[in-house]
């Protein structure tokens, strides 16, 4: 058993009612331990509180109860030790691709020469050589998300948080992006928390899939994925993969039906 880096301790979140309505219980008290170098995907139906949980870990939202510990220290707010990639495109439009990737390094006060070196290495890793001086608007959605991943990684965070980063991409691009991200993880062994509602994506990337229940969200199943690394997209057609997929599809189906009020 490797060491715990992130510990989610009875974290819950209740949003106050909108215009006198009933408060929304987005997240039931939730527990999760993330070991160093884990790649955890969080799978759940829409509205089950995945983003809420991730935002709490990022420090962008405060839990109503419980706490989150990173390396034993309670999280009080956002910080460079937790890199985040959002579902929406959040590159800074006034900065070029290279400047976007360098953003966190500049905030940290990394000297220019070293900054350029790191930026060059990550531009290479996400396959954006030749686009350093483009502005985000001049890039496709997939390229923008690759830049966002590079921007988060360049900061060398303890843990990388991704909230459906490929949700807006077409299937082919999505597959390529999964392989790219997995390749980086296999080489650098980052700790990753990845939110998705795509079952194949969840299995393909994960060393552990955490399934969340319909709202109010809580963790319903925690399934290790023992598929060997390095993984190739052809793995998606193996019997092991298919049986995991069948198992998770069943878990999710029940939840989705509950979310829609079907019994």
């Amino acid at each position: 058993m490797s060491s715990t880096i992130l510990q989610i301790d009875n974290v819950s979140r209740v949003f106050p009612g909108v215009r006198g309505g009933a408060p929304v219980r987005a997240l039931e008290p939730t527990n999760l331990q993330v070991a160093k170098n884990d790649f955890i995907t969080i799978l759940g139906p829409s509205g089950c509180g995945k983003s809420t949980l991730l935002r709490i870990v990022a420090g962008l939202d405060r839990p109503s109860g419980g706490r989150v510990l990173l390396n034993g220290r309670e999280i009080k707010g956002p910080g460079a030790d937790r890199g985040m990639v959002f579902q929406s495109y959040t590159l800074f439009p006034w900065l070029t691709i290279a400047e976007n990737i360098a953003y966190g390094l500049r905030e940290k006060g990394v000297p220019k020469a070293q900054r350029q070196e790191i930026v060059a290495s990550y531009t290479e890793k996400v396959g954006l050589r030749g686009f350093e001086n483009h502005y985000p608007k001049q890039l496709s959605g997939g390229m923008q998300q690759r830049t966002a991943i590079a921007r988060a990684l360049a900061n060398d965070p303890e843990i990388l948080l991704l909230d459906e980063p490929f949700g807006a991409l077409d299937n082919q691009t999505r597959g390529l992006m999964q392989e790219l991200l997995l390749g980086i993880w296999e080489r650098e062994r980052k700790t990753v928390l990845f939110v998705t509602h795509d079952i194949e994506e969840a299995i393909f990337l994960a060393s552990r899939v955490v399934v969340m229940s319909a709202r109010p969200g809580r963790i319903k199943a925690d399934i290790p994925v023992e598929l060997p690394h390095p993984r190739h997209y052809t793995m998606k057609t193996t019997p092991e993969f298919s049986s995991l997929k069948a198992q998770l599809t069943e878990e999710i189906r029940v939840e989705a039906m509950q979310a829609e009020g079907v019994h």
Partner: protein
Amino acid sequence: MPRPLEPVSQSTRITLGISFFVLFVAAWAFATLGGFVSRTFLADPITMVQDGWLLLTRFGFLSDIGVTVWRVVGGFILAAIIAVPLGILMGAYKTFEAFLEPFVSFARYLPASAFVPLLILWAGIGEMQKLLVIFIGSVFQIILMVAVAVGNTRRDLVEAAYTLGSSDRGVVRRVLIPANAPEIAEILRLVLGWAWTYVIVAELIGSSSGIGHMIIDSQALLATGQMIFGIIVIGIIGLISDFLFKAFNRKLFPWRLA
């Protein structure tokens, strides 16, 4: 037939823009030279150009233009230096906004021209008074518009900056300001246009130089050609400053067009 939102080519744009000016002058010439309007009330274009030439060559109108431009630019820069930082602070910090916003909203509706008599009392009829009229007319507008722009910054960009390790000050300096810089430049361009109307009002009363002063002098002589020339000069200067501002913004904020 053009279709909605369909862009036009640069050359068509210029041709169309100029042709309206031509049309306008033609209508004016037709009305005056054709004898439909009395010369006492409206000079014809030819008289206007002659009067204007005389003003420039014989009566030192160029220095009047210079004085007016300096007043507008001086008062405007003074206002911008104070208003832009205040607006950014108000947009970024809500306590600051709660403190200042009601007053600024109120002060914004105080007519700058109504301050002219008071300002003469306070500051005399020197340059200070002219600058203050422009200043009062511009400063509250800029503060409020900048505050609104900064307050509407995309939240997800601010959140992204925090997760990349920005401090609160870092977010102001490296997200709120650059994200809104083009909009702030656009606000300044707009308010500079308004400043031109205030300066003339300031020069109509208690002034011995400037375009506004020339217009008032010409009124006593019923020299409508000169008056119209003065008004047109203001329009042309406005057009030029607008053009420069736009060109400058394009150069400064290439990402906007990217």
